[in-house]
């Protein structure tokens, strides 16, 4: 099916998935992670009981971290929209946003370890998709 749309001689990556598909997957994960981040941040700002009580943070408190996570969530969603437009700059913005979120989630891990570790894993997948597979298709000739 796909071969009818692709130009002759199109080669695929060793994973068997086209680079473009990885980028689309990366964008989907970016928006998904961004939404989760905003929920995560809003709950933290509201001082939800979802989080571990009396958790010790690297610095500051649950409220501050809630704002950090919320802002990163907005950045992730912006990145998801931007990467789909296909510029090299947006691609690096996506990589930077996902990396920063990976770091922030690790530092925020005390509040809700399983949630943070899951988000961390998503961020690593995004960095993988955008850096390994995003290069060719996104450069505008």
């Amino acid at each position: 099916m796909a071969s009818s749309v692709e130009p002759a001689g199109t080669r695929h990556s060793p994973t068997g998935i086209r680079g473009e598909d990885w980028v689309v997957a990366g964008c989907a994960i970016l928006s998904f992670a961004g939404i989760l981040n905003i929920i995560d941040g809003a709950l933290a700002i509201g001082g939800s009981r979802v989080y571990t009580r009396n958790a010790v943070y690297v610095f500051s408190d649950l409220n501050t971290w809630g704002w950090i996570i919320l802002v990163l969530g907005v950045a992730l969603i912006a990145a998801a929209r931007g990467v789909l437009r296909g510029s090299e700059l947006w691609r690096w913005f996506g990589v930077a946003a996902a990396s920063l979120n990976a770091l922030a989630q690790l530092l925020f891990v005390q509040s809700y370890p399983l949630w943070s570790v899951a988000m961390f894993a998503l961020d690593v997948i995004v960095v993988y998709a955008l850096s390994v597979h995003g290069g060719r298709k996104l450069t505008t000739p």
Partner: protein
Amino acid sequence: MASGYDVEADLGRARSGNRYYPEGADYDDAARGAGWLTFATIMLALSGTFSVIDGIVAVSKSKFFTPNAVYVFSDLKTWGWIVLILGVLELVAAGAIFGGSQLARWFGIVAAGLNALGQLLFVQGYPWWSAAAFAVDVVIIYALAAHAGPRLRGR
């Protein structure tokens, strides 16, 4: 490798930041290792930054870590310094890979390997942190060992 592929010219383009792949390249970027190299460098920087923070917190804010944890040897402060130094080593490796030498690639593998080992021995301090850092280190070793080779060959 595709025939007629000019590594030098491609690396020059990559460094100039304008274009990653030569005109007419298909979706075989992964095979060339350029993307993987970028990925490994980002992950090295991420893991290095995290280990440095981890080490600083261990040295300065012991309340954060599991109280009365038993370590393989020595105490929390010592481990804090060890992880801090391993993190710096990873950051140096991330910078060195920009230079694009085969030596830097191996240096990155060794740095990530040592950090993986250090984090595992330090796992009592804060299991979630160590496990996450360990996983990233393994991914770095995979990226550098399995995919970064062709990109740096002969340099």
